């Protein structure tokens, strides 16, 4: 808290932070896309008003605010994911701005080995502080990779002698000499970078559905659940080239499947709405199951709307392919440490049973316990492919994507 008040003196921004914290806590902002967008907008605002002398200060500031946002609703993973994205961009941009002299230095040891499954190495070659001694799975994987480890090790030690802080200070002094504060030089670049993230969030549906026609063929019968704008867009874009039928399960108790069904049928896609109980018996007729995701976890498992675990398990029993469509911002460096059923979050019983019946009078026998989970956990084995705006990937590959998307030091915010 003091950290933000020192660095941010702009009252509206402070209020904006509080408002988002409160809204997250009160669940007035829900859903991955909405929270991601709100977070990105807030970060843009913070970067534009914050006062900082070094990049380290800025990242610390962002992290402290991020922690508050995450604590407000730890179940919205997109908040943390966007923060990680932005932090990484900040490091990249400043490194680029601070002088091209550094760049070749950093590039070679850190470039990730090209694997066949990795067609287009993303801009990892830009300089970024790397691989402190964090005990994440990602580090472990890298350590296990003989090709990367030795240079990494040496680099790490040399890095530690200079250190990022030291590194940053050097430059700051350099800039000082020119009487140009770091903040002023870098800020426009950073804002620009965050703006790109925002633009990407706004176009995520189009980008996910770019490859829709490659995944859906004529005459397919597709099962989907719940309402997801990604899937709606995906199916609509596929419908331009293909003729297929969609079966939508109504997805009790939120019944968001109904919304999905009406949205699809109004787009002239043949749609059938079924109760959830028909998912299993209908599965033999279904050629593909398309699911949305709330978060894609590091092991390739998913947090999805409730009901998806049932559909995925039924699909596995009938060997029906399961396709998951989700934006890249849902990639989450986290694992499901809970039970598989009803792992994450529980809503109130109101949607399941009326207050009148469920609240119970006194002395009416044993208390009625109502469980209303919001999310399901879908194991990675049950998913065949993940379609993101960053290409299609199999679930076991997610850890790699996460490593490429976020900096290791940000894994724990």
């Amino acid at each position, binding site marked *: 808290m003091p950290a933000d008040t020192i660095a941010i003196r702009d009252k509206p921004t*402070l*209020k904006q*932070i*509080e*408002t988002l914290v*409160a809204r997250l*806590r*009160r*669940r007035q902002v829900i859903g991955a896309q909405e929270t991601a967008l709100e977070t990105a907008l807030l970060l843009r605002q913070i970067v534009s008003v914050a006062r900082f002398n070094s990049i380290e200060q800025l990242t610390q500031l962002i992290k402290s605010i991020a922690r508050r946002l995450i*604590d407000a*609703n730890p179940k919205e993973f997109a908040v943390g994911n966007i923060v990680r994205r932005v932090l990484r961009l900040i490091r990249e941009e400043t490194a680029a701005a601070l002088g091209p002299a550094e760049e070749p230095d950093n590039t070679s040891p850190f470039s990730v080995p090209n694997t066949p499954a990795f067609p287009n190495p993303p801009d990892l070659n830009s300089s970024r502080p790397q691989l402190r001694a964090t005990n994440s799975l990602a580090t472990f994987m890298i350590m296990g990779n003989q090709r990367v480890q030795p240079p990494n090790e040496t680099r790490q030690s040399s890095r530690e002698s200079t250190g990022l802080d030291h590194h940053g200070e050097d430059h700051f002094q350099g800039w000082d000499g020119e009487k140009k504060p770091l903040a002023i030089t870098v800020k426009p670049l950073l804002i620009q970078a965050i703006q790109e993230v925002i633009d990407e969030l706004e176009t995520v549906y189009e980008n996910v559905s770019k490859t829709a026609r490659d995944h859906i063929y004529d005459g397919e019968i597709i099962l989907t659940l719940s309402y997801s704008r990604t899937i709606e867009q995906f199916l609509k874009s596929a419908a331009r080239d293909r003729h297929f039928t969609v079966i939508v399960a109504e997805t009790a108790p939120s019944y968001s499947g109904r919304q999905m069904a009406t949205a699809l049928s109004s787009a002239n896609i043949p749609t059938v709405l079924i109760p959830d109980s028909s998912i299993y018996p209908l599965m033999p007729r279904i050629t593909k199951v398309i699911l949305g995701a709330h978060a894609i976890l590091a092991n390739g498992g998913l947090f999805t709307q409730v009901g998806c675990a049932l559909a995925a398990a039924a699909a596995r029993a009938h060997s029906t392919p399961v396709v998951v469509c989700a934006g890249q911002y849902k990639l989450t460096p986290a694992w499901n440490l809970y*039970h598989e059923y*009803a792992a994450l979050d*529980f*809503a*109130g*019983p*109101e949607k399941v049973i009326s*207050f*009148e*019946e469920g*609240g*119970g*009078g*006194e*002395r009416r026998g044993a*208390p009625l*316990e*109502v*469980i*209303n989970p919001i999310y399901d956990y879908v194991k990675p084995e049950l998913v065949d492919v993940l379609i993101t705006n960053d290409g299609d990937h199999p679930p076991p590959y997610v850890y790699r994507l996460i490593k490429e998307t976020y900096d290791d030091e940000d894994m724990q915010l």
Partner: protein
Amino acid sequence: MPPKDTQRDKGSEEEEVLQAVVLADSFNTRFKPLTLNTPRCLLPICNVPMLLWTFESLALAGVEQIFVFCNAHSDQVKEAIQTSRFSQPSSGVHIVPIVSPRAMSVGDAMRELDEKQLISSDFILVAGDVVSNLQIDEVVKEHKERRKKNKDAIMTMVVKRSGAFHRTRPVGDASVFVLDPTTSECVHYESILAEPAKRSIMLPREVMEKHHEVEVRNDLIDCSIDVCSVDVPVLFSENFDYQDLRRDFVHGVLTSDLLGKSIYCHVVEQGYAARVRDTKSYAAVSKDIISRWTFPLVPGDNLPGGDEYEYRRGNRYISKDNVMLSRTCTIGNDTIIGPQARIHDNVRIENSVIGPRCSIGPGTIIRDSFIWDDAYVDAGCTIEGSIIGQAVHIGTGSTIKKGCLIAEGTKLGPKAVIGEFKRISREKPPADEEEEEGEEEIAEGVVNGMAHAKRGHFSRMPLALELGEQAEAYVWPDTVGADVGADGRSSSAARDADSEDEETEAWGNLKHLRLGMYQADISLSWTEYGFDPYFSDTDSSDDEEESSLASPASGVLLTPSGDSIPDFSLAPRSSANFRSECVSSLERALAEGHTVDDAAIELKTLRMASNVTMTEVRDVVIEFVVGLVKGEPGSAAQKNNISPVVERWAGLITNLMASERVEMLLLLQVRFKTCARLPNYLAAFKFFLYAFYNEDIVEASSIRAWLKDPRSREAMGKASQANMEACWKQGAHTLAVIEADEEDSEEEDEEDDSE
């Protein structure tokens, strides 16, 4: 007040600042002795002060400005507001505490609100102990829309559909709402007390004339959330006798033709809102929070206090802050374990809330209980269905049975045995409590000494109460289970009098509000409870006033049974004073020949000033009128004197009695008994009755109802059974005469008025 000006400026700048008024005081003492040192709104529910739940509920609805009226322990309330996260400038909510030591009721608070001119537009009025996840702003919007069309729609009450027997619906403090289903206008309101059981309500005839269709709803929880227009405080100022928001204000507005205002209800189907009215609803609301009806306001998500909890299967909430759970302890369903609590070996906790920093000793069993902050429970105790206050120390091997309230700082045990429904505090109960209950003895334990509680007390109930050797505690007089009839508490007292006074709460009713008290224990047949709205189409009477009477012949009729037992116990304190003033006022009126209306107004003012019940006023008037009749008791002179006197005062009597004719007759009866020293005097009763009838003070039907009323034949107050019986017989005789008269006169009209 510095905030005043700034607020007004703000109000003019931004038109739509949503304001709320929180009444932090409940103006009753149902939580005593827990509220001895803590204001009720700061008592924790699910480990968070109730006031914070209310603030969060309001913040959820987008309220920007909250005025908090506090009375008792206002410094604590202020401090709580200051330390809460809502007082941070960036929280988006501006909270202004208003200390009003004068306010003794909701009405007083509203009048003060009007005086201070703090309210600029429609506002939300809530009690300081409401838990809700409603979007109240939508109700406000609805209210404003309605106001645009109809300026007289001054208030919207938020009610939740729940079913008549829902645990959250207070049995002793429920309400029946009569709604117009098309507009959801509330056309009639009746508060329902559990005791005396109300089997019927009366609906004014006009209601049926104005509305084609009405719904009588006995399944609604009154959430104590009202959206009020600015006129509401003004109305309170104009009617200075309004005390209670529901019983006086709503009832007054709905029954008054003069005001011409209307009140609407918003029936909530989705979402949760309930008020902690008493210890029983405290348990119910806690349970609702634990079973997540208040989602997202639940521990682990958006707990107003900000503590973090881990939610585990079976509605178990374990704080993330250094809880020590022994490996061998059993945490049952529906349980909250607060921050830094220490639960030792072999403890069993079920369906309970354990507060922050509590310590529960090995082998203790806790069921259906609420243990508040810093309590220390030693090994081998059993606690069931009770509330254990802050920093209570319970020694080894103690047993606490259901329904107990143990106040802050009390020490009990070791080996204490506390029976059901005991109230125990560290401080001595206030003197008047003892006095009132008379015979009940105060058990007293002294530190470091043998508990030298009075032997008699213990020998009477050897196992019911044992405070333990190192106890520092006083047992409060038993109120529950006291014989209601003998006690003389009455519902009319509860209704008429200011609700701030403990003594005005009907004990019989209060026991329904106690924690752990189930219907089965009270042995009421609840199948009979409910409504049989019998609407007959007979058009026997066009007289408006009569239609609201309890007469079997009138249109909408639901006979009152036990609706209003008059208060025959003559309150010892201010009443003597009041009586003499009343009598002198009446004498003045007699001497100076005032009109009866003037006399009535004077009496009403006197009643306000000395804070007595309407019943008492009636009693004085009846006594006065009876006393006016001169002449030798039983003589012809006296008989002749009766009718002029009654004629002279008929207006006043009618004015005061309003619709409670049966009660009046009972009073008359009792007065006769107590006044009459000579048996002859009794004989005058029938002449009085006849005179009353002739002056249209009573109808034949009221006399009939009185005769049927079992109370008219019982011994009451100082009147002996025999005397009552004598009177009753006279009454029966008079009625026969009257009926004979009526039949004569009505033969021409061909109207049959007999049942």
